[in-house]
């Protein structure tokens, strides 16, 4: 008798699981495309900020190259090409800040000059360390156009450490971490430059059309 009751409870619970499982399957089917689209848009938005639209004619988010950093981590590089030639590379670099890693998206041109740098995510103190966000201040914009050599490598530090970058009032650790992330990003670029430069765009249709348009103009 009691085993029969147990069976009934099991069946009731099983039926509920089946019903709600179906509901989840349906919701997933409705939203899966939109969610993938949002993730792609997110990536494109952060790439757009560090690689100007004018220097590439390929789809940055899909033309990627997976490289190994010095620490052995995999780094995905988004390669910008124009008429088949590499015009810039964007990749993520990070460094531990005051609380947790600060992730920076860095765009670099073939000469190693910074096209743009943006903080993707951080957990720094609101009101003090968050001035590294482009929404809260223009501090991060000063890196545009710089490279290793301009300033020299030993000046790639905050002023407190004898470098040339300003820290902000009440926060030294955060800017120090960002400067370090960007410096290491540039060194990573130098180390992997050869592989990045020989990249061929997989969107041949797009780059082919670009070429056709270019030759059309010369005629």
């Amino acid at each position, binding site marked *: 008798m009691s085993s029969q009751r147990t069976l*009934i*409870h099991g069946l*009731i*619970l099983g039926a*509920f*699981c089946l019903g*709600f499982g179906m*509901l*989840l399957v349906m*919701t*997933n089917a*409705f*939203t899966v495309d*939109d*969610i993938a689209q*949002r993730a792609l*848009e*997110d990536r494109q938005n952060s790439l757009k900020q560090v690689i100007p639209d004018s220097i590439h004619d390929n789809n940055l988010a899909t033309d990627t190259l997976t490289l190994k950093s010095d620490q052995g981590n995999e780094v995905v590089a988004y390669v910008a090409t124009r008429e088949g030639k590499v015009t810039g590379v964007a990749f993520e670099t990070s460094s531990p800040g005051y609380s947790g890693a600060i992730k920076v998206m860095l765009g670099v041109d073939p000469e190693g000059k910074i096209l743009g740098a943006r903080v993707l995510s951080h957990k720094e*103190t*609101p*009101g*003090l360390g968050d001035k590294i966000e482009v929404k809260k201040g223009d501090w991060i914009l000063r890196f545009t156009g710089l490279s290793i050599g301009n300033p020299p490598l030993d000046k790639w530090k905050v002023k407190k450490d004898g470098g040339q970058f300003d820290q902000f009032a009440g926060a030294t650790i955060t800017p120090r971490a960002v400067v370090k992330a960007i410096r290491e990003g540039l060194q990573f670029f130098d180390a992997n430059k050869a592989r990045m430069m020989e990249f061929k765009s997989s969107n041949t249709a797009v780059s082919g059309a670009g070429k056709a348009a270019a030759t059309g103009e010369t005629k």
Partner: protein
Amino acid sequence: MTTDYRTIAREGLWSNNGVLSMMLGLCPAMAMTNSATNGLGMGLATAFVMTSSSVIASLFRNSFSQEVRIPVFVLIMGTMVTVVDMCMNAWLHELYKVLGLFIPLIVVNCLPFARIEMVASKNPVLPSLADGFFMGVGFTFALTLIGAVREISGSGTLFSDASLLLGSTFKFMEMRILPEDSGILMMILPPGAFLATGLLLVAKRMIDERSAKAAQASAAPSVA
């Protein structure tokens, strides 16, 4: 159990408010309220989960046995939370980036669970819907209030980024109350959550006490 909707509404919104009276669901109430907009968003998501799971629990109240009711409640809430999670990710993505981490936590919020166990599993659909809805709105009200207190004192703004949540027509809600950099930073950090919640609890008790005294005073002459 009465089906007096005015009583249900008053209990949910004020006299038996989830956060300010029952003190349930304090984890999201404190973790997600560093701005009024975040509090509002978290509250609305919770209100939706509460209303829908109350309705579903009430619909099936005669089909599950007493022994398996707890797993079934968990199942109902887990499903609704996942549905909200996926829908927000797809269609309210900006807000999802702020709240996304906390949406799955609604499932361990005791408030919806308590209301299903106490009300929805014993009552017809409509009163359960009303209870879930008003409890949810009361929760939203409490979270928005805590968020507003913390945001005004901490960063000097009110409803900043509300247009991300409600659409660009609600841009007018974004206000600056105090001049820039004059806020008390601590209020938007975790300790501020405890301070703001505590002060609001005190405020609610004082208001209740005062209205109880007023009711007593007006009742006293008739007794005498």
